[in-house]
């Protein structure tokens, strides 16, 4: 892919009249031609599991149809711990769930792969949707969400999201999360609202442009100060536990610090392991945190949960396209909703910046594919004209777009003078595990919440609905699990679901030597299967040493 050389493009930009972009008449064919989801050959049909026959990105299909790296033998001698509820993943959804389980007086373990808070939640910038404006209503929030998602979301889930949203904001304030107000000098001032792309009303509430930092530091502190929540850092879930009837009865956790397995017997399991970005579908860079490798979804699928819209991903229009060390990093929609223009290498605006993300992304990919992009050191993108925004709104960078200014500093770009180069980045998993309004999956005792669940966003997510979703449904799942949990763990726990799974793999000619979940991206140089085979080998060698004495 080639584009217009950076210096030339910069000169074109300086001469730009910023004329309104041409009106988009045929959205569908733009999506079909340029959106990565629609590209031929990027998906394949699943041949095993509850979604047999459904199309899914090839990289993900491999993991969804993978084999477990552990067997019964690995679990012999593992530490066994009982709890009422096991929550997996300590981003926003997991923390909200754990807090509610604890508030209901139940025993809860919160196990997470990285450290608590190291998640997509802390990275969120733009904000969170809730219909609080006088010109707005939960009904409008509901309608906007369904429409943006191409009318295929689960109406009940969307209604739950929209009607709960104001209450969720109240709960967050009670936990100590702050929000921007219209008038900073008044305590009862209205909340500052911004308009998300694709919405009919201004509905985004935020804390500066690092809403996720504010949300996560509050939730993290709340969890860590709650003596009833046991937090296990660096303890990824590597398999779920089942009984003979296929119910979920706990999970197998691997402690990365001590290199040992722990068997957690739990009456209810809530998965909140987040998204898929670090699988780099279609070779795209990603805005996601290091641990976003679809682990929860892989494990939920293996134990029998049904998935939906797993062929639908969000490629955020404004990922960093240059320099390479920040490639794929996010530039929040806050910049476009504040009025920053997208300009191609010819110095022309080419799309209404506030159309839904899938459309804006496709338009950027079109500009790049048709040679109107900007090229710098082999990277191609378009300009996000921040200097022009700053000219029209002096001080906005310093006061409101703090994260963007920070990015400028990281990249040695003076954003008051120089535009940034952007290109779509793999940002969000629109679909996921099928759930009901309490986050329950089709597998008894198993809940899934947050980005790994599906049904709320249809085939496209609006800005701000993910943060709303993780808290609303995280809390609901926590409450529900606490209410229905049994104090006594199942008498018989094991890997019963694996026997059927492996039989299915063999019958369908799927290789059984592909293991999942991967836990860390390839460049993390971590191979779980190797790690445990090393463990076994060391154990044996130690034993034979002892024997010889």
């Amino acid at each position, binding site marked *: 892919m080639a584009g217009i050389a950076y210096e030339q493009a910069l000169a074109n930009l300086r001469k730009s009249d910023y004329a309104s972009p041409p009106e988009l008449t045929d959205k569908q064919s733009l999506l079909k031609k340029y959106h990565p989801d629609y590209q031929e050959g990027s998906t394949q049909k699943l041949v095993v599991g509850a979604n047999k026959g459904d199309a899914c990105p090839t990289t993900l299909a491999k993991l969804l149809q993978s084999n477990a790296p552990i067997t019964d033998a690995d679990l012999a001698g593992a530490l066994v711990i009982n709890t009422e509820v096991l929550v997996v993943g300590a981003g926003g959804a997991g923390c909200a769930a754990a807090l509610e389980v604890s508030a209901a007086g139940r025993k809860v373990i919160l196990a997470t792969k990285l450290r608590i808070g190291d998640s997509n939640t802390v990275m969120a910038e733009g904000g969170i949707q809730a*219909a609080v404006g*006088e010109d707005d209503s939960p009904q409008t929030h509901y309608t906007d969400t369904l429409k943006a998602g191409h009318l295929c979301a689960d109406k009940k889930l969307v209604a739950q999201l929209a009607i709960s949203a104001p209450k969720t904001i109240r709960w967050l*304030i009670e*936990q100590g999360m702050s929000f921007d107000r219209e008038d900073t000098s008044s305590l009862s001032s209205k909340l500052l609202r911004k308009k998300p792309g694709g919405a009919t009303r201004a509905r985004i509430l935020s804390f500066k442009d690092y809403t996720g930092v504010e949300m996560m530091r509050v939730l993290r*502190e709340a969890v860590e100060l709650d003596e009833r929540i046991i937090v296990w850092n*660096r303890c990824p879930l590597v398999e779920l536990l089942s009984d003979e009837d296929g119910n979920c009865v706990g999970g197998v956790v691997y402690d990365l610090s001590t290199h040992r397995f722990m068997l957690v017997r739990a009456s209810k399991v809530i998965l909140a392991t987040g998204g898929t970005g670090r699988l780099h579908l279609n070779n795209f860079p990603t805005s996601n945190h290091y641990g976003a490798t679809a682990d929860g979804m892989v494990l939920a699928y293996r134990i029998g949960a049904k998935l939906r819209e797993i062929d639908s991903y969000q490629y955020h229009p404004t990922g960093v396209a240059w320099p390479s060390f920040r490639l794929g990093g996010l530039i929040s929609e806050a910049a476009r909703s504040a009025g920053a223009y997208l300009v191609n290498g010819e110095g022309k605006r080419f799309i209404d910046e506030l159309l839904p993300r899938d459309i804006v992304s496709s338009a950027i990919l079109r500009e790049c594919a048709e040679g109107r992009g900007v090229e710098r050191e082999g990277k191609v993108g378009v300009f996000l004209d921040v200097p022009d925004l700053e000219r029209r709104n002096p001080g906005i960078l310093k006061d409101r777009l703090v994260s963007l200014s920070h990015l400028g500093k990281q990249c040695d770009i003076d954003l008051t003078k120089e535009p940034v180069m952007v290109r779509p980045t793999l940002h969000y998993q629109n679909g996921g595990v099928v759930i009901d309004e309490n986050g329950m999956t089709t597998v008894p005792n198993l809940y899934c919440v947050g980005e790994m669940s599906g049904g709320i966003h249809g085939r496209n997510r609006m800005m701000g609905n993910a943060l709303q979703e993780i808290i609303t449904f995280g809390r609901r799942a926590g409450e529900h699990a606490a209410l229905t949990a049994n104090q006594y763990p199942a008498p018989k726990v094991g890997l019963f679901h694996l026997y059927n799974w492996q039989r299915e793999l063999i019958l369908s000619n799927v290789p059984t030597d592909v293991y999942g979940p991967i836990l860390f991206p390839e460049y993390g140089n971590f191979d779980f299967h190797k790690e445990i085979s090393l463990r076994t080998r060391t154990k044996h060698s130690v034993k034979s040493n002892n024997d010889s004495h």
Partner: protein
Amino acid sequence: MKENNCVSLVVNGKQLKADEGCSILEAVMKSGETVTDNIGCSGQGVCGSCRVLVRRQDEKKIISTLACETKVEEGLQVSFLDHLPVNHRQHVYKTNDWEGKSWNILQRINEVFPEAKHCRHCGGCDNACPKHLEVQKGVNMAAEGDLNAAAIFNECIMCNLCTIACPEMISPNHLGTYVRRLTTAMTLRPSDLLRRLHQIDSGEMTIDLDAEIK
């Protein structure tokens, strides 16, 4: 020795080569090391998990910073830091801590963070902070009951570097978060939110699942 656009540096005692322009974190990954810790946001600089001490070639000074935001340099010495000091003191409170005691906020702050008034003004926290916040000022304001301290910690990413640096075990960032959380929980009452909650609770606003979508 410096090669074309390539530098060598030492990370946790191991010599690495890396391309100029890449971050310390990237360099570690590219070197083939297994990375399962000290990483999260991987470059955005917001999760605070990649904390390192670095020393530049021919410089005595050791600085603390974030590995994902710091570019490699020839001769850089880097050590990743563990997450909390061994004898870290937990400051325990509830979000309704100030309820009915709002005239005693100063006492409450001093009860929960008794060390705060012992600040030695050593500047350790300010030097440690990779976000260059005025941590010491925030601590001193909080210790005097000045709730404007909250704003000083607006951009704090809870990397805990100031907590590690503080000889008085004050845990500046947790103090900042305490003041932030309680101030908000106690006082933020947006009128539009109050109204909407009332409309929903009273049944005045509901959702019609089957409303026509235009």
